[in-house]
């Protein structure tokens, strides 16, 4: 149990998918103007990432590895992730309309998010077990959500700040992201204990 908790903490903070591994930067810059939409995007990503980690593990261990066709991994992963997300989206739309209203608009956007594929591929690289894979996916998504919401909060305040003209808009956003990444480097020491 403690080991799993440590894994969650390590993936969310120490090996943060956005600020340390630099995956999923597109939604990080794109959907971080408002805290509300950042939270919605984060929750949808959490859902997709956890699910994708599970299905790609199954695909890897029951199809790609036995048939020795690992060179088709990326293609297969994208196919499986897209199909699963599409299926779940339809099921959610039918059975939980309220949930669909919160997550629905973000779900198709995330299907081809590089963080989703990246985490699935990292799982294979680390030769993780099923539970570890799912936890790794969930932890990464938690880290992604946290960073996205933090960054959105910063940007909401930046709108009110008097930014020099040359830095206004995207440049100050990138500088903020850089400072945030620098701050997350501080968590690197956490892994040694």
């Amino acid at each position, binding site marked *: 149990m403690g080991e799993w908790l440590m894994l969650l903490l390590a993936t969310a903070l120490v090996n943060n998918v956005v600020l340390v591994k630099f995956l999923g930067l597109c939604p990080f810059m794109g959907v971080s103007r408002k805290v509300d939409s950042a939270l919605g995007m984060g929750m949808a990503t959490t859902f997709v990432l956890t699910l994708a980690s599970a299905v790609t593990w199954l695909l890897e261990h029951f*199809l790609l590895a036995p*048939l020795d*066709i690992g060179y*088709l991994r990326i*293609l*297969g992963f994208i*196919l*499986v992730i897209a*199909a699963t997300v*599409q*299926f779940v989206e*339809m*099921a959610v*739309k*039918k*059975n939980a*309309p309220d949930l669909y209203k919160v997550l629905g608009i973000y779900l198709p956007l995330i299907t081809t998010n590089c963080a989703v594929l990246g985490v699935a591929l990292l799982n294979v690289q680390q030769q993780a077990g099923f539970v570890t894979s799912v936890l790794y996916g969930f932890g990464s998504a938690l880290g992604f959500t946290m960073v996205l919401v933090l960054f959105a909060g910063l940007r909401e305040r930046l709108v009110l700040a008097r930014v020099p003209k040359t830095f206004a808009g995207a440049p100050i956003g990138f500088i903020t992201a850089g400072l945030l990444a620098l701050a997350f480097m501080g968590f690197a020491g956490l892994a040694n204990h």
Partner: protein
Amino acid sequence: MLIAIASFSSMGVVFGLVLGLAARLFRVETVGLEAEIMPLMPGTNCGQCGYPGCAGAAAALAKGEAPPSCCPPGGQALALALAEKLGVALDASALGEQVPMIAVVREDICIGCTKCFKSCPTDAVMGAVKQVHAVIREACTGCAKCENVCPTGAIVLDPVPVTLQTWVWPKPVAA
């Protein structure tokens, strides 16, 4: 090689089948008034009613938030049909003499800027840069979007001209 082709093809077929079945199994039927109103709407999502598209307007109509006369492109015909469907009284005097309108290009002042061409939701405006535009009458719904974007006032709404295609026998006066 063959194994790869076979396994991925079968995977694709299975996913296709599952998704196709799911689309049928999980289809969300929009039941009730809203679903009945939706086919009556023009469907161009022009937004003149102030709602997000025709679906939004249909939802507002079903809830009774919008009057039956809220749709300008639908005109009197749609207002009457909606009033009948919703069972509400229609203040027909507001659109009493309103006749179906259609966009017409004043060819002497059209500068060929293609703004109306780009804004038309039904692709009823033909034209190219620096060419005088023209309107396909059969496709125009009279939504007035082009009228609002034209920089020279060259495209305006006129009553639908009576031609062999549009002339109809007047309805008998109710006794």
